[in-house]
């Protein structure tokens, strides 16, 4: 029911557009550093761990680059980035909308005739659907770079081996999987968080609970969606 209200015709496209741009900035620029930081470590740890696991086997070393690339693209970049964003962006959205509910800002907008569900939630969802896939792509690049930094200067692999790994067995369809996951997870984390904030009742304790529930439910649904998507798209 909430989504029907959210995706109704905007009262004023310019106001909605302005709000969408603000949300894009908040989600994108505001989350860039944490996403990059996590991505570097994902790539680095994946590279070192697989080097350790493949040590002494008949699997060629350059496979490490290949494994880092595909693990990052197919799974780690979209999933971990969105789990982190559920914590950062999702809780922020739930708190922002919940705070507006408690301070009667939403009631004030309703009296003015504003479709509050649409004005407060639609720009956030649209912004997330555009920006989070970009963050996931950046995360994938940075993660692969992290794998390089962790494995090449330390002598685990040569530059040529890592690059050869990155170039091996490339399947463009994996990028599609990554983007589908990113868009799906973005929708889940924003809609769940906004729902939790929009329907918050009570005081600051309830607002805190709503914020926590936004993160917990988003994370659970993201993991569930991950399983469903990977099953549907790879079998």
């Amino acid at each position: 029911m909430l989504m029907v209200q959210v995706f109704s015709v905007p009262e004023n496209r310019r106001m909605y557009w302005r709000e969408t741009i603000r949300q894009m900035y908040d989600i994108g620029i505001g989350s860039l550093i944490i996403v990059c930081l996590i991505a570097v470590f994902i790539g680095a740890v994946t590279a070192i761990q697989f080097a350790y696991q493949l040590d002494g086997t008949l699997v060629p070393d350059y496979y490490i680059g290949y494994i880092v690339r595909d693990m990052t693209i197919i799974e780690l970049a979209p999933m971990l980035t969105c789990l982190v964003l559920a914590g950062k962006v999702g809780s922020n959205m739930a708190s922002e909308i919940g705070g507006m509910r408690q301070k009667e800002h939403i009631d004030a907008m309703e009296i003015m005739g504003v479709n509050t569900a649409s004005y407060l939630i639609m720009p956030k969802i649209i912004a997330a659907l555009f920006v989070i896939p970009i963050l996931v792509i950046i995360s994938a690049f940075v993660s692969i770079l992290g794998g390089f930094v962790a494995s090449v200067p330390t002598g685990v692999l040569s530059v040529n081996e890592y690059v050869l790994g990155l170039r091996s067995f490339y399947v463009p369809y994996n990028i599609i999987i990554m983007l589908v996951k990113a868009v799906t997870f973005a929708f889940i984390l924003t809609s769940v968080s906004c729902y939790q904030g929009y329907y918050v009742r009570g005081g600051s304790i309830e607002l805190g609970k709503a914020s926590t529930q936004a993160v917990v439910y988003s994370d659970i649904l993201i993991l569930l969606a991950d399983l469903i998507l990977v099953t549907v798209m790879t079998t």
Partner: protein
Amino acid sequence: MIKAVNIHKSFGDSKVLKGIDMVFEKGKTNLIIGKSGAGKTVLLKILVGLFDPTQGEVWYDDINFFKLNKIDRRALRMKMGMLFQGGALFDSMTVEENIRFPLDMFSNMTAKEKSIRVNSCLERVNLEGVNKKYPSETSGGMQKRIGIARAIVFHPKYLFCDEPNSGLDPKTSILIDELISDITQENNITTVINTHDMNSVMEIGDKIALLHQGDLAWVGNKSEVLDTENDLLFDFIFASPFLKKLRDQAIKS
């Protein structure tokens, strides 16, 4: 004119309103008074559609509000202005942005026209030169006046005020009351005020309704208050021994 017909409202087993029938007249300040928990705020929120009644109807002139679909309800709400108890000013926006918000959302006015309208509203509430301030940088009385300016920026036909004097000193309260009363008369709008401030009752109560435990206990105007024989109203208005003494002295003299 706003007409509440047989309004009932329950929250679970708790009956908050038990059949309120009331007409809020055009061009007058209509006061809803009563003790805390009497159902004033619930009635006000039903009138503006923030709560749906369990039973009953609300008529805006010849329009049955709760029979309207969501789009028509929003269209009617554009003719309403409301001053909230806490102001409900958007704290991340400046005073000017707060007042301009309804214009930005619903009008095709140019930036200059909007600016003129905002300044005229600020001037009307005797609050000039605060355009660039944030609500947190203004006093409680100023916030109320900013709230009034925002409520009247779209020239509403109906004005609702939820405890406009709460948290204000008596002098500022009187200024706010006079402002609301003047705006009501100037624009011939229907104003409904929810209050338990005695100054408001005696100064601007063109029509007064006393709620008691969800029932309508008394309806009258400010000139009828002093002579009331209604025990509930008497206890409410002259709650303190000091006021009772003053009333007795006034009657004697």
